Every structure is written in structure tokens, then in C-alpha cells.
């Protein structure tokens, strides 16, 4: 793991929590970054420094602290824009998490106050998602369909855990208003191909959204190159603070969309009986934004940029190759998702015969300090698709090591012994 410049040991030192001892003297083996990542000292220090030296509300304040905080907050927007290759900084909207970003777009449809054809939604219109979505990219569209009478449809998933695009032409058709799919699955690790779906969406005049919550943290994502209309992701999975997410969208679409949350800072002028709205991004940032959190996310982006996203990807790819091989040696273990590391991120979900994931996870944690996630990982329909109620999931990030994967495997052997 130490080819070239990338030095995982040095990186680990940046994460205070990784050297923590768990109760009972267990070391921490954190394999749950797909759920939420840990924070480097640089992010924590940036947030503290902001609160100890510069904090004030942004935008509204003319004084020194206000100017400093506003500059830092808007600089964070610049950093995020550069990080994802956004054509314009104004296309970066800060939300509280990826879920809000997805809901924001969903609520833009079928709003009677917006007469832009692209955002009309009613009976006969269709929304297309997939069977491998996180609940945050399912429920907002279900609620939209219920409110408007539109129809929700979805791509199936193959046995190998890939999107089944065989019926693409039929699923995405002239009635389709928006296609929203995950860029990288949080359960399968699958990285979905965007081009084919996007081309078809363009053909039928549908918009396209990507849930990039699991890709932006782990690989270089260039929204301009991807070509979709909207991209959502979340700070806490990419070394940033909780409480901050991002919606990127094309400027003309964001401008055409009706406002979502109303309140301070999203307005141009307010009278008692009507209001006019600020240009994007502020139109979608009602109220006091997560100021310190956005600034912390900027620091996380700096950190990732300094390491290099290609290095992050390479390291995680090595872990994935190693992990897939190591897990294949656990008797009976079944990987849910691609069993090779191609077009696949470092998220390994699996089942072990006759042992419930809750028991697997609990014993891994209790006996070995190995933190994995168990359950349906907010992707219950995907689990139903595979006929299982739950999986155990180990997910990797730049600070993980092959030693930690070895600890996981040792733990799994012990689990099998306990329940043997």
C-alpha cells in the first residue's frame, strides 16, 4: 500500500479516531466508511479554528467576522466546484446531506407555480430509478409520484449485481421526465455506466440525475465529463463534517426550477404578498446554511486533492482486489455484487450461511473491534431482489489497510466457530 507517494501509515496518523482504543482494549478496525467516513485532523482543526476565530453568519453581515466567514464559506463552494469539475461555482448548492439534494430535485417537479415544461409532472409522466438505489434515491421519487400521479419505474439488477439495461429503450421513453440512478452502489460496489442511459434520456428529452454519494468520495468525478443534469453527494462520506451535502446542477435548470425551501437569504426582495428570488446558488440555500460544515467540507476537499483522487482510487482498488480474494476463502461466504474488482468500488457485502448479519457484525465488533455495517444498508429493495433480509458490509477508504482486511477475515472465522 505504499507505492509511490501514497503512504497509508502517514494518512492514518491524520485521523485521530483510528488510534483510539475501544472498551476492553480492542483496537479499532473501521470498515464502515461507506456508511460514514472518519475526519482527518485537518478538517477538525479547520472547523475549530473557524469557531474560535472567525465565526459569524454569512452573506448578511458586513463586519469583519461576517466578511471572513462569508469568504471562507464561498471559498468552500469554489473548492467543491473545482473538485467535481463544475462549469460554474454557482451550480454548487450546499444542502444538509445527499438526501436533501435528491429531495430538492424531486420537489422541483409537479409544482403548479412552475410552468417550465421540463418540470411538469402528472399522470402519464414517468420517473425511472433502479432496483439498486439507496432509499434516499427511492422514497423522494415515490412521494413525488404519489403527489402528482406520475408513474415510478425502475431498472432491474442482474444476478452479478449490475444494472440490467436490456430494456432501456422501453423503460426510458417519451413519457419519462427524469432518470435518477446511483453512480456507485453502496451495497454492491458496482459503478454504473452513465453514457448509454444518458444518451437514451437525451433522445427522449428526459433529465438525468446521478446519486454520486458513493463515487465522489472514492474516485475523481467530473460532472461536466459525466454529462448528467444533476449530481448529489454528501460531505460526511468524503472526510467532511456531518450536516453538509451538495447538489450540483446545470445552471439553466437550477434557474428554471421553482424555489424549494423558502426563507432568509434565498430571496431578492420580499413583500407581504409575494417575493422575488435570488439567483442560484442562493435561491436554494434558505436560512442560515451549515457554515462551519461547508468550510469543513472545503478542508476535506483540500485533503483529498492533496492525496490525489487517483491515488485514493488506486489504493482502494488494491484493497478491493485483496478483500475479494480474502473473503472468498471464508467457507460458504457469498459476495452480493460483482466478484471481480472491475468497475467496482471498495464495498464488500456478503452473507454467511446460517449466521445472521446482526450476529456477524456484533461478534466482529465485540471480539475484534472490527466495525462493519449489517442490515439492508438503506437498500431494502435490492436485498429483496437477492432474496435476503440483510448482509454484512465491509467498506474501505484511503485509510484502510490489508491488515485490517486480515482482521476481518480472522473475525469471520471466529464467528463461524461460535455458531458452528
Amino acid at each position, binding site marked *: 500500500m505504499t507505492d509511490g507517494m501514497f503512504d497509508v501509515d502517514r494518512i492514518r496518523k491524520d485521523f485521530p479516531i483510528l488510534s483510539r482504543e475501544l*472498551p476492553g482494549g480492542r483496537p479499532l478496525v473501521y470498515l464502515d466508511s461507506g456508511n460514514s467516513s472518519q475526519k482527518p485532523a485537518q478538517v477538525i482543526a479547520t472547523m475549530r479554528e473557524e469557531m474560535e476565530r472567525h465565526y459569524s453568519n454569512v452573506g448578511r453581515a458586513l463586519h469583519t467576522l461576517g466578511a471572513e466567514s462569508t469568504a471562507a464559506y464561498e471559498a468552500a463552494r469554489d473548492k467543491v466546484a473545482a473538485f467535481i469539475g463544475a462549469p460554474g461555482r454557482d451550480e454548487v448548492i450546499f444542502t444538509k446531506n445527499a438526501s436533501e439534494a435528491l429531495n430538492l430535485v424531486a420537489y422541483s417537479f409537479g409544482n403548479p407555480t412552475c410552468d417550465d415544461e421540463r418540470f411538469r409532472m402528472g399522470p402519464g409522466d414517468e420517473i425511472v430509478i433502479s432496483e439498486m438505489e439507496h432509499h434516499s434515491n427511492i422514497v423522494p421519487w415515490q412521494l413525488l409520484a404519489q403527489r402528482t400521479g406520475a408513474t415510478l419505474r425502475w431498472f432491474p439488477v442482474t444476478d452479478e449485481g449490475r444494472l440490467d439495461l436490456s430494456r432501456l429503450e422501453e423503460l426510458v421513453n417519451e413519457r419519462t421526465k427524469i432518470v435518477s440512478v446511483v453512480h456507485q452502489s453502496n451495497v454492491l460496489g458496482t459503478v454504473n455506466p452513465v453514457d448509454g442511459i444518458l444518451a437514451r434520456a437525451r433522445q427522449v428529452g428526459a433529465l438525468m440525475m446521478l446519486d454520486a454519494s458513493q463515487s465522489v468520495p472514492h474516485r475523481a468525478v467530473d460532472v461536466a465529463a459525466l454529462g448528467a443534469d444533476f449530481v448529489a453527494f454528501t460531505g460526511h462520506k468524503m472526510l467532511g463534517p456531518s450536516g453538509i451535502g451538495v447538489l450540483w446542477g446545470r445552471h439553466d435548470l437550477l434557474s428554471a426550477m421553482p424555489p424549494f425551501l423558502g426563507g432568509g437569504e434565498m430571496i431578492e426582495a420580499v413583500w407581504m404578498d409575494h417575493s422575488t428570488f435570488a439567483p442560484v446558488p442562493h435561491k436554494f440555500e434558505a436560512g442560515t446554511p451549515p457554515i462551519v460544515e461547508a468550510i469543513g467540507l472545503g478542508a476535506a476537499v483540500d485533503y483529498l486533492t492533496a492525496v490525489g483522487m487517483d491515488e485514493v482510487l488506486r489504493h482502494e482498488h488494491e484493497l478491493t482486489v485483496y478483500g475479494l480474494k480474502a473473503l472468498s476463502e471464508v467457507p460458504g461466504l457469498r459476495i452480493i455484487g460483482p466478484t471481480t474488482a472491475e468497475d467496482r468500488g471498495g464495498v464488500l457485502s456478503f452473507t454467511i450461511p446460517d449466521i445472521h448479519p*446482526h450476529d456477524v457484525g*456484533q461478534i466482529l465488533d465485540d471480539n475484534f473491534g472490527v466495525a462493519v455495517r449489517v442490515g439492508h444498508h438503506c437498500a431494502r429493495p435490492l436485498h429483496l431482489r437477492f432474496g435476503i433480509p440483510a448482509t454484512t458490509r465491509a467498506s474501505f477508504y484511503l485509510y484502510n489497510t490489508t491488515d485490517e482486511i486480515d482482521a476481518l477475515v480472522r473475525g469471520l472465522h471466529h464467528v463461524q466457530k461460535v455458531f458452528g
Partner: protein
Amino acid sequence: MIAESLYQELILEHYKHPQGRGLRDPYDAEVHHVNPTCGDEVTMRVKLGDGGKVEDVSYDGQGCSISQAAASVLHELATGSTVGHSLEVVEEFTRLMQGRGQVEPDEDVLGDAVAFAGVAKFPARVKCALLAWMAYKDAVARSSA
């Protein structure tokens, strides 16, 4: 190690060798309870007799060791007991589980079920332990109705 406070030998024993598992006739009421967040399920039948006697508690289900062992322990405690006594045990078990590890269990009332005391410290697992017991309470209510 911490795990030992959760995975008591007795729990593992019940999980590997569940007592009274399988759905049996006759019965007065059958209920099906699901924990939608983790997918644990239990189907439970209750047959009551004269004088509030619990003649049989039969069940089937799937889920983690805690939820399955809890059903097995419940079967042992309730079958042959009375409705009144068994519901007392259910009360005490519920109190223990919801006590966030702060409640001192009453061993006299709980019997073997005291082995679950460690579960109370894991809020995410409390529902697993309670699933069968809540189903039982429900089934008894329906039998007596």
C-alpha cells in the same frame, strides 16, 4: 470480552437447538410479527386451556440469534405456565430490555430469560429480543378476546 455479555452460552444454546420450534395444531390464535428494519420475522401460535393455562406456544421464524433464541426461551417459560404468570414475565422482560442496561433484572421472575440482560446495552438489538415476546403478548390477547 464484551461479546460474552451478549452472546451468553445459554442464548447460543437456544439458537442452535431451539426448543418447541415449529407451528402446531390446535391453536387459539396465530400472529405474524416483523421487524421491518432488520427483516426478523416470527409466526406465533398460542393454545390456552382451562384456568388460564398456557397449553402450547408454537412458533416459526427467521432472524438473528437473539431473536430466535428469545422465541425458544419464551416457549420454555410460557408453555405449561399460566397466562397471568407468563404476562408478568413478559412485563419484566420488556422492562429489562428497555432499560438501556440500567435495570437490575429480577432473576426470580425471569428465569433463563435473564441471559438476555446484556442485550439491553445494545439499543439496536433490543427489538430483536422483544420480537417474539411482543408477538406472544399479542397472540394471548387475541386468544382471550
